[in-house]
């Protein structure tokens, strides 16, 4: 009875809403077909006929419907329809909610009690009609002055307001909170009360969003490489050289779907490789860990294993001393802001430039806190080969150091502490093991060499008296050690040949000083703000709609709250991102996994090809350009032109360096042209509580601000339409649009308890109240450990099985203590990671005499300042006009290489000259910036150019795009890791004659 009434209501609603909504009307007129909704046994049913723009409907069972939606019982049908339709009735939702069991819908689908049958062409079309009916009148955005609508969106650099007029973005600004938005936290320290401003900050690449959306490098139409014929000559040798022709979406999707089918039939399991950027345009639905994985899992693919690019030394090295594998070996992020302001006397920034890298996604939220620290008289020291932005701005002592020699300096600091008794003896005695063996190494009892300040000077270039002054300051003051932008363990020094040694040194030094005691911790005031960490909203690595329970944290929280169909990749084959070229070119590669569950997970070697699997025959590339981020990048160009790689599809927003190697290009739109939902800086499982770098937690409905440019489509929609061609559309989309998935995330989170969907959809953001009660604030990191208590910070790792004795007692190490001689390394034979951390000079540096004689300059390639990795760079955006990002010479914007005037003078190079950086691996053309901020003998050039523009044959000729990673070594830090070491790189530089390009 109820079911038949609901079916009748649906027919009325379709006609009533079609009369009101042109979009719905147009959609309903697009195809002629018959849809049937019925109980399986035929006892109740209703058909809906769409013909010549009209919809007619009647109770009963149609003869040959194109779409059948059937339920095992009428009562199940009623409940599912009410559930799906609940979005239509905002006002009634609170009343209906107790009767809505999302789990029942998913469960019915999984058990075939609720089925959608028919050709995907019609099933997808019918669900599109129903979804449009349900959502076409949902209002997004606020009307503001000037005839503009104010929308909200989210970027990798912070949330934004987007002002739109006449379908065009007028401006993009930082989010300005209103009086109704929850206010900031306060911290009392040293007799003062510190409160951050009631506003959200924004990174330059976020602020430049409009010029990225309207970039001339946007891909607006699907394209096929001009000499690629899927049914004839494919000409893979011409990838990167031949041009493109515009094709229709149908042709592009048909070619891609047919190739997916063909390679699976012809070659077997694992023949498709999915490569994606490590980041994506922001949003839980469209993220690479969401829609992308859901689709890839559905077709079965070879997974690219991401190495811990920014964490290398911490993950492969530091973690063995103290655990934290779930944080890639970096420190706990709790309570440091308060503890540092109250207790610390000194902050040592070592390979740390938070004002450049903005923590992680955290814009300039901590900038004001560093100003407070300066006002409080907390001293600052900066150890870096480059006098970086933070050092130049906040002030303090700059200690320039020869790249790759940090561990030698660290051992010498330990030497002074040991000799002068300037370390925490009680802590070392009770909280650590193996210290005596480290002492024996430092004092030279083991090898006859005392690791004194005088010893290290030849390596590091740091004068002995400076080391003594540094060690005495650090050893007598309560000190925070800041490594990397977030302060807890990143930093260019960990991405080089000595990166593992360096990160190990950092944790060993902190253990000597009583890590976790008041004022003694990791951080730079970026992480560990007093925010509410119990209010649940999923972060991006909680998997979005992926249903992926292996590679994301979906199973941990999201799945329980937002029931959806799980997905699972059935292929076992994996390739390390760093060895994709070798896998394709040589047919063989090995790797070590970024397995964060345990200390030993990273030791489990895997090989390509996997047993019984096909070699890679097709590449599905999703977003971003890896040329700027792959060491020895020219390998990638060569791999792309390999005969064995039969098909390459690239789904991308912009025409970047890597896109030009595709056979078919699928143009995706930006996050400003589709709907999504997310929280600022919230990485979910990839960085638990990552948002606690912020002054306010900001959760956003990422409005669809404008229509997709050209013919571009959202990533979700592209996958859905491919899924349609593979019979997978109902499985992939679960009959929901992106906007409906946003609502599912909203409903599943704590957000739905504090704001209505209608209001959230309209306003676009919610500020989670800060943690004002002292009792509810997270305690300072590691204080529990320093005081020998059970772990009491809100961190769900390590996993229970990682504790040696009682749960929550001690660290993840075998002993539960800080291990100067890690048990895990003692059982794993890696000559490059000896249990006692010893100084071994870089395998590419000033100590490698022969190579150094040929290439006497050390290149360092830190994470960039103005683009978010490759995102933001090179797209003809306003960022190009920032002279610290690119320098324009004769109409072309060159990547910047910074060198000391002394090195420039000996090569007759002037400021802004075009120069060639080269070594045996290749050459890159940059514009020279002369600066005394970089030490002589060192060249500083950010990584992550989005452009790759070889002036001749790709893979062998100079690149004017600025992919400086062409020069960096592909070698792993240790052969028994899959790690990158770009900051160990020797080059030479010479003036470059532009005629070489023009000719």
């Amino acid at each position, binding site marked *: 009875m109820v079911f038949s009434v609901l079916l009748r209501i649906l027919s009325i609603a379709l006609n009533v809403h079609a009369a009101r909504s042109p979009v719905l009307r147009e959609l309903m007129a697009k195809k002629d077909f018959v849809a049937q909704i019925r109980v399986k046994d035929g006892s109740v049913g209703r058909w809906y006929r769409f013909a010549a723009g009209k919809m007619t409907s009647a109770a009963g069972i149609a003869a040959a419907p194109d779409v059948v939606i059937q339920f095992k019982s009428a009562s199940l049908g009623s409940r599912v329809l009410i559930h799906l339709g609940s979005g239509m009735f905002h006002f009634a939702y609170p009343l209906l909610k107790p009767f809505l069991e999302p789990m029942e819908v998913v469960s019915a689908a999984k058990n075939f009690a609720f089925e959608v049958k028919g050709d995907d062409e019609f099933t997808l079309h019918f669900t599109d009609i129903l979804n449009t009916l349900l959502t076409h009148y949902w209002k997004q955005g606020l009307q503001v*002055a000037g005839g503009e609508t104010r929308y909200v969106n989210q970027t990798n650099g912070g949330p934004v307001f987007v002002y739109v007029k006449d379908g065009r973005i007028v401006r993009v*600004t930082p989010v300005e909170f209103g009086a109704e938005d929850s206010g900031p936290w306060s911290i009392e320290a040293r007799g003062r009360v510190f409160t951050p401003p009631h506003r959200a900050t924004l990174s330059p690449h976020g602020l430049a969003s*409009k*010029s990225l959306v309207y970039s001339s490098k946007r891909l607006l139409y699907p394209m096929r490489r001009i000499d690629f014929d899927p049914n004839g000559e494919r000409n893979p040798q011409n990838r990167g050289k031949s041009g493109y022709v515009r094709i229709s979406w149908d042709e592009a999707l048909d070619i891609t779907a047919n190739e997916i089918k063909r390679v699976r039939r012809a070659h077997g399991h694992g023949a498709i490789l999915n490569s994606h950027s490590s980041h994506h345009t922001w949003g839980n639905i469209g993220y690479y860990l969401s829609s992308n994985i859901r689709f890839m899992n559905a077709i079965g693919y070879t997974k690219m294993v991401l190495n811990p690019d920014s964490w290398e030394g911490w993950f492969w090295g530091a973690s063995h001393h103290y655990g934290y594998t779930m944080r890639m070996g970096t420190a706990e992020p709790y309570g440091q802001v308060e503890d540092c302001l109250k207790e610390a006397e000194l902050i040592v920034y070592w390979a740390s430039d938070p004002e450049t890298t903005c923590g992680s996604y955290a814009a300039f939220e901590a*900038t004001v806190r560093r100003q407070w620290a300066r006002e409080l008289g907390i*001293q600052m020291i900066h150890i870096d080969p480059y006098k970086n932005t933070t050092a130049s701005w906040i002030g303090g002592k700059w200690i320039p150091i020869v790249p790759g020699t940090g561990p030698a300096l660290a051992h010498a600091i330990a030497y002074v502490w040991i000799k002068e008794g300037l370390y925490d003896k009680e802590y070392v005695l009770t909280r650590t093991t193996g210290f005596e063996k480290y002492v024996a190494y430092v004092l030279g009892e083991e090898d006859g060499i005392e690791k004194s300040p005088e010893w290290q000077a030849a390596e590091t270039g740091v004068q002995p008296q*400076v080391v003594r002054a540094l060690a005495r300051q650090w050893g007598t003051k309560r000190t925070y050690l800041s490594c990397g932008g977030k302060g807890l363990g990143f930093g260019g020094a960990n991405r080089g040949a000595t990166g593992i040694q360096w990160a190990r040194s950092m944790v060993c030094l902190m253990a000597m000083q009583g890590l976790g005691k008041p004022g003694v911790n990791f951080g730079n005031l970026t992480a560990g703000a007093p925010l509410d960490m119990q209010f649940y909203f999923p972060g991006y690595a909680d998997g979005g709609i992926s249903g992926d329970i292996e590679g994301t944290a979906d199973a941990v929280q999201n799945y329980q709250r937002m029931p959806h169909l799980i997905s699972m990749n059935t292929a076992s084959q994996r390739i390390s991102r760093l060895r994709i070229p070798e896998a394709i070119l040589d047919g063989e590669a090995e790797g070590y996994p970024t397995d964060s569950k345990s200390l030993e997970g990273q030791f489990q070697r895997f090989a390509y090809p996997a047993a019984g699997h096909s070699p890679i025959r097709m590449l599905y590339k999703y977003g971003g350009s890896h040329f700027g981020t792959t060491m020895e990048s020219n390998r990638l160009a060569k791999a792309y032109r390999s005969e064995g790689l039969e098909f390459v599809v690239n789904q991308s927003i912009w025409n970047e360096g890597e896109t030009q190697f595709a056979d078919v290009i699928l143009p995706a739109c930006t996050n400003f042209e589709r709907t999504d939902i997310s929280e600022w800086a919230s990485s979910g499982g990839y960085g638990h509580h990552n948002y606690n770098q912020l002054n306010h937690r900001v959760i956003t409905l990422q409005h669809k601000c404008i229509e997709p440019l050209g013919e571009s489509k959202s990533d979700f929609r592209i996958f859905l339409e491919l899924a349609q061609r593979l019979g997978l559309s109902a499985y992939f989309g679960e009959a929901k649009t992106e906007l409906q998935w946003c609502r599912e995330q909203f409903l599943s989170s704590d957000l739905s308890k504090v704001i209505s969907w209608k209001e959230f959809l309209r306003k676009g953001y919610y500020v989670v109240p800060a943690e004002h009660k002292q009792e509810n604030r997270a305690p300072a990191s590691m204080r529990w450990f320093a005081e020998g208590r059970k772990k009491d910070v809100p961190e769900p790792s390590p996993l229970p099985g990682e504790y040696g004795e009682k749960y929550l007692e001690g660290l993840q190490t075998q002993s539960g203590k800080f291990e100067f001689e890690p048990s895990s390394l003692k059982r794993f034979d890696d000559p490059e990671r000896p249990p006692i951390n010893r100084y071994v000079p870089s395998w590419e540096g000033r100590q490698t005499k022969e190579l150094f004689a040929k290439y006497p300059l050390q290149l360092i390639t830190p994470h960039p300042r103005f683009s978010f990795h490759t995102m933001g760079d090179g797209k003809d955006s306003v960022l190009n006009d920032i002279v610290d990002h690119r320098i324009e010479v004769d109409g072309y914007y060159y990547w910047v290489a910074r060198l000391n005037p002394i090195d420039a003078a000996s090569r007759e190079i002037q400021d802004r000259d075009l120069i060639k950086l080269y070594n045996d691996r290749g050459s890159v053309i940059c514009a020279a910036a002369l600066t005394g901020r970089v030490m002589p003998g060192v060249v500083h050039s950010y990584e992550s150019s989005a452009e790759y523009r070889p002036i001749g044959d790709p893979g062998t000729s100079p690149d004017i795009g600025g992919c400086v990673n062409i020069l960096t070594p592909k070698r792993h830090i240790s052969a028994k890791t899959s790690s990158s070491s770009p900051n160990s790189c020797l080059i030479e530089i010479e003036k470059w004659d532009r005629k070489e390009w023009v000719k």
Partner: protein
Amino acid sequence: MKKWNLVIDVAECHNCNNCFISAKDEYVGNEFPGYSAPQPLHGHKWIDIKSRERGSFPFVDVAYVPTMCNHCDDAPCVKAGRGAVTKREDGIVIIDPVKARGRSDLVDACPYGAIWWNAELDLPQAWTFDAHLLDRGADAPRCVKACPTGAMRSFKVSDDEMRRITQDEGLEELAPEFKTRPRVLYKNLHRYNKEFVAGTVVAISNDVADCVSDATVELFDGTACIGSAVTDAFGEFKIDRLEPRPRALRLHVSHASFVPRDLEFMFDSHSIALAEIALQRAT
């Protein structure tokens, strides 16, 4: 009458470029009739961050100075404009995007180089202080709102109040010699237009060198002491705000435990780091 003023603290600017990007975002592709025609995507920098590095490795610092239309009270462009450039009651100077067409002479009229020539539109252009946004209720221009360090602040106050702020905070004009009464003022401008003398003080005993902290360092021009500093834990000192003119200077280094030292050197008008200064222990 309250008028707009912009105050920029050179010591707090770290070159994030949010002000530059804001002025690009607001004006590229947008026309605000009566205020401004669109700014070209590339080339123009209506907010232009100048920079200057002082000293040499490792005693080096860098200053960033965002520059833009100064909205001068004695604006040469208004005089030269013959009606094409107007001074509003709130202090803001607007180059009329219609009346100023073809007036390339206005570019040359601005001694600060803050007026840009738009060849495509045949129009001189400058930053309008975001007047179109202020007129619809904004409480500050976009560059101020996007500045993460607080280096840029705007004030809508009476001229009397602004004079008080100028005095209290020691604000300066970018180029007082132009005598245009700019409404954009700077703090800590010495980081850009003055010089420093820096150095390190050490002591060597038994062949072991150590940094000397708490040494008093005084700088003399003839008999006049023109600056002093105390060495830090690394034995370093820096005496700043020196006028950039060549002269002989003398440094006097003293410390209770060491024999005082005097060093004479030629200051060539550029910031300089002296060679390491070694002290002998007093007996």
